[in-house]
């Protein structure tokens, strides 16, 4: 566990991709099976433990620390695992207990750590024994073995059991019942040092957030055997932790694992955002255009296993299996093949907006009412496999023809073709993008978020190959709003005020008032973040827990230019409107808050038919 903790710790500080790869590869090289396999599983998000939930960890820390101090600390650190790892009461060592440190648990009402040295502020001595494991992460790579040894020896000296191995932790977490888990976890946390505690909690909660993508971890594994990461990607769905056969193959000790999954995921091809300057070099006749539908990109696969049983699966664009969330689509997937398409909600023949589709996302239980009220639909963009034939090496135009035939053969109302847009010049396409309703999208235009351009001869290449596919999104809406409240961010942004609530002017019985219309936490540069953070700290008028009230008067305050994709009515917001995908476009230091936009401007953007039946209009809207 300590070696794995050191890897995670080191990765957390390493900004460079290549150095990260080197660190992970070195770990795979040094550490034996099955530990390294479980590490790979942890890094790729392939581990999940049914009973280990963040709530459990909160309970453990709540029983050991003051809730107010915990809340303040969590707000500051911005990461549950790290907060708990840092705050966890350390078991007293021999010398310390002589000072009258009560044994294990301070009373919940107390801030922990306090009794360690009552009235004894000079405690250089006792501190020396509490931080031994945070040894230099850079020792790693060459000196790993000796350090582990040193740690174990220390533990023996203190008559403590050695810290658990990664495999021990993983297998125990998998088999342990819900009731035994808290005690086991607390036991491990007592045994481990800060870095170990942090890594254990990261593992348990499954939220690594150390800037390592599953793809990067697989690439590092591939590097072990000088293999193309793409090969690992293709066999991945057929593998399971601790990946013994994968490592055997990578080290030249075994056969290449075959993906026996009858309905495998195929890495997805993505598009580049097009810039105005790109058009000059592009020839309209080389491209096919279609609408960019505002849903979820998915891969729908159907295949037959060795015994001839059909298997249907739905994958997200990152390869996550999301089949369980959409049982209502599965019967429609009954022909062997792999469709690349967009998941949408279609009601009475009309494609609904993303806001409506959202009701179907992240649901644990998919009720019959949900599937009835939000009927799911697949709009097909591409065909990657037809029966047993891999089509990815064919040009897009040929795949498109096969897709049209495939969709026809399916003959299912839930699956249809993504229509193409006829155009002969960039001007014509520009016009279509500006007004999708008149260019073929008709009543579905609300669910169009732009235009896709695909080269007729483009092969289906995983990743984001240059010059093959382009996305050309609709221009965002822009308003000037006033910063009203700020909150600290999480993860990389922790301790910075990076979540902003902004408002626009409206007139009510109290006169001119700012009313909050949205929240944004990205869009700005690192430099702008530092500037806003400083502004927030210096212009706080009140604090409400983690929220800071920032000065927002007609002549005092910060105007933010906010870009957003869409607007809908919302009864949950005081202003009566909710923005989609709002982000900070620009800081308007030059603009006094009194010149910011008004709520009426936003209300005019609301189309009359955008009112969802479930949403009640608020008083603010009635006034206009």
């Amino acid at each position, binding site marked *: 566990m300590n070696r794995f903790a050191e890897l995670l*710790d080191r990765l*957390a*500080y*390493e*900004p460079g991709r290549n150095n990260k790869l080197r660190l992970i590869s070195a770990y795979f090289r040094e550490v034996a099976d099955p530990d390294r396999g479980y590490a790979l599983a942890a890094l790729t998000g392939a581990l999940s433990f049914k009973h280990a939930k963040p709530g459990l960890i909160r309970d453990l820390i709540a029983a050991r*620390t*003051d809730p*107010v*101090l915990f809340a*303040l*600390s969590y707000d*500051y*650190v*911005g*990461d549950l695992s*790290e*907060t708990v790892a*840092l*705050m966890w009461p350390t078991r007293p060592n021999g010398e310390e207990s002589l000072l009258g440190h009560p044994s294990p648990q301070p009373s919940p*009402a*107390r*801030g*922990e*750590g*306090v009794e*360690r*040295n*009552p*009235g*004894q*502020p*000079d*405690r*250089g001595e006792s*501190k*020396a024994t*509490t*931080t*031994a494991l*945070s*040894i*230099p*992460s*850079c*020792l790693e790579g*060459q*000196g790993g073995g000796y350090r582990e040894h040193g740690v174990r020896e220390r533990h023996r000296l203190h008559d403590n059991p050695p810290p658990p191995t990664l495999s021990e932790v993983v297998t125990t977490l998998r088999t342990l019942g819900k009731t035994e888990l808290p005690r086991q976890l607390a036991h491990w946390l007592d045994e481990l040092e800060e870095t170990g505690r*942090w890594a254990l909690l990261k593992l348990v909660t499954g939220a690594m957030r150390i800037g390592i993508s599953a793809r990067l971890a697989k690439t590092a594994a591939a590097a072990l055997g000088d293999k193309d990461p793409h090969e690992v990607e293709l066999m991945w769905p057929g593998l399971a932790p601790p990946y013994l056969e994968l490592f055997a193959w990578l080290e030249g000790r075994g056969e290449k694992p075959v993906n026996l999954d009858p309905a495998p995921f195929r890495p997805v091809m993505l598009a580049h955002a097009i810039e105005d300057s790109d058009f000059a070099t592009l020839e309209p006749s080389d491209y096919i255009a279609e609408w960019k539908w505002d849903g979820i990109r998915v891969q729908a696969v159907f295949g037959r296993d060795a015994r001839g049983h059909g298997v249907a699966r739905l994958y997200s664009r990152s390869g996550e299996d999301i089949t369980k969330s959409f049982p209502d689509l599965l019967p429609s997937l009954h022909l062997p093949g792999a469709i690349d398409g967009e998941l949408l909600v279609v009601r009475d023949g009309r494609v609904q907006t993303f806001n409506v589709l959202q009701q179907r996302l992240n649901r644990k239980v998919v009720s019959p009412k949900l599937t009835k009220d939000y009927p799911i639909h697949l709009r097909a963009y591409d065909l990657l496999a037809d029966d047993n034939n891999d089509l990815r090496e064919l040009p897009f135009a040929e795949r498109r023809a096969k897709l049209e035939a495939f969709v026809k053969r399916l003959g299912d109302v839930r699956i249809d073709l993504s229509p193409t847009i006829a155009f002969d010049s960039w001007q014509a396409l520009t016009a279509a993008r500006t007004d999708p309703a008149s260019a073929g999208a008709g009543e579905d235009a609300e669910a169009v978020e732009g235009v896709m351009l695909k080269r007729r001869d483009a092969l289906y290449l995983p990743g984001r190959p240059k010059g093959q596919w382009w996305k050309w999104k609709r221009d965002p809406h822009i308003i000037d709003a006033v910063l009203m409240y700020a909150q600290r961010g999480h*993860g*990389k*942004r*922790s*301790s*910075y005020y990076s979540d902003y609530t902004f408002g626009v002017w409206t007139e009510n019985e109290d006169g001119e008032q700012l009313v909050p219309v949205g929240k944004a936490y990205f869009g700005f540069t690192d430099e702008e973040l*530092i500037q806003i*953070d*400083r502004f927030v*700290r210096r212009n706080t008028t009140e604090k409400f827990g983690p929220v800071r009230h920032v000065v927002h008067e007609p002549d005092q305050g910060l105007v933010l230019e906010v870009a957003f994709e869409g607007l809908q009515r919302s009864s949950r917001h005081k202003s009566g409107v909710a923005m989609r995908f709002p982000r900070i476009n620009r800081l308007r230091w030059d603009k006094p808050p009194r010149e910011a936009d008004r709520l009426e401007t936003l209300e005019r953007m609301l189309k009359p038919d955008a009112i969802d039946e479930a949403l009640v209009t608020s008083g603010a809207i009635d006034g206009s």
Partner: protein
Amino acid sequence: MGGSSPRMTGKNRGDRPYISLMRPQDILMPVPAGLCCKAGGFHIDPVRPVERAVITHGHSDHARAGHGAVLATQETLDMMRLRYGDNFARSTQALRYGEAIRLGDVTVKFHPAGHVLGSAQIAVSCKDTCIVASGDYKDAPDPTCASFEVVPCDVFITEATFGLPVFRHGNAADEIGKLLASVALFPERAHLVGAYSLGKAQRVIALLRTAGYDAPIYLHGAMEKITHYYQSRGVALGELRAVKGMKKAELAGTVTLAPPTATSDIWTRRFPDPVTAFASGWMRVRARARQRGVELPLVISDHADWDGLTATIAATGAGEVWVTHGQEDALVHWCQTRGLAARPLDLVGYGDEEESETLPASEDEA
């Protein structure tokens, strides 16, 4: 802050000395210029020019130029002179640790704060009430300055820079061990240690020497003056060299101390494949190290950590605690759970050290 002003107290005293009527806030009260002692006619660490200032230590957010008369330790006065020039105040007076002086109706006494060389806690006594304004302090050992001293008092004014239970600094010697292990592992690379130029840098050097590192240590130009001042006050730092003028290859395997901002500057291009370290209490929180692009975080702080703050408050025996700059909320809450009267002291202008240590833009020491 309502209540009777010191003058009214004086009037009462004319009739009959009601000592018990003297409240702490009649002795010291926060005003926009800083902590004001009307009865003594001075401000502590004023952020605006005042007639008479008593200064805890030489960091620029506490020691500013432009006051009439300044009372501080000799070291603090010297540091102000180094930074602001000879005319930083109209007049100055030095006070030693343990020495008391009468100012108006109050007595002022200095005690070591253990923060940096010359840092003092200021004990202000009036009648039977003693308030200790501790400035910035740490209770951990530091070979470059006098050790923190617990001063029994009625009201203790504490900083709260690391006033959250997640901040536990550990042993500085272990952190130096990390640095030296890295130096041994990468003999072909240079190690750049970002450290505050007043106090932290000298402490890191002294700790390196204590750990047995006896090679020359290199200094960024901005640190030379203050570091040489430390040496002139008898702090042993071994052989120090200016990094300026060194050839790139000669810096392989060396340790250089630099202001935190310089370690992410084009200045670093003169070093062979530098490893960036940063010595700060903030390094305890991973995100903070990541934000700065630090590869080797060293948890070494000139401020007390959570355990230090709480242990010190308890040790002073103070029944009332005023908490300033930093994470006031948590420390105030902790005091209250201990049955101590506590409140945040809204002093503006301090704790900028947090920003300047964290945000590259505003390191004025560089």
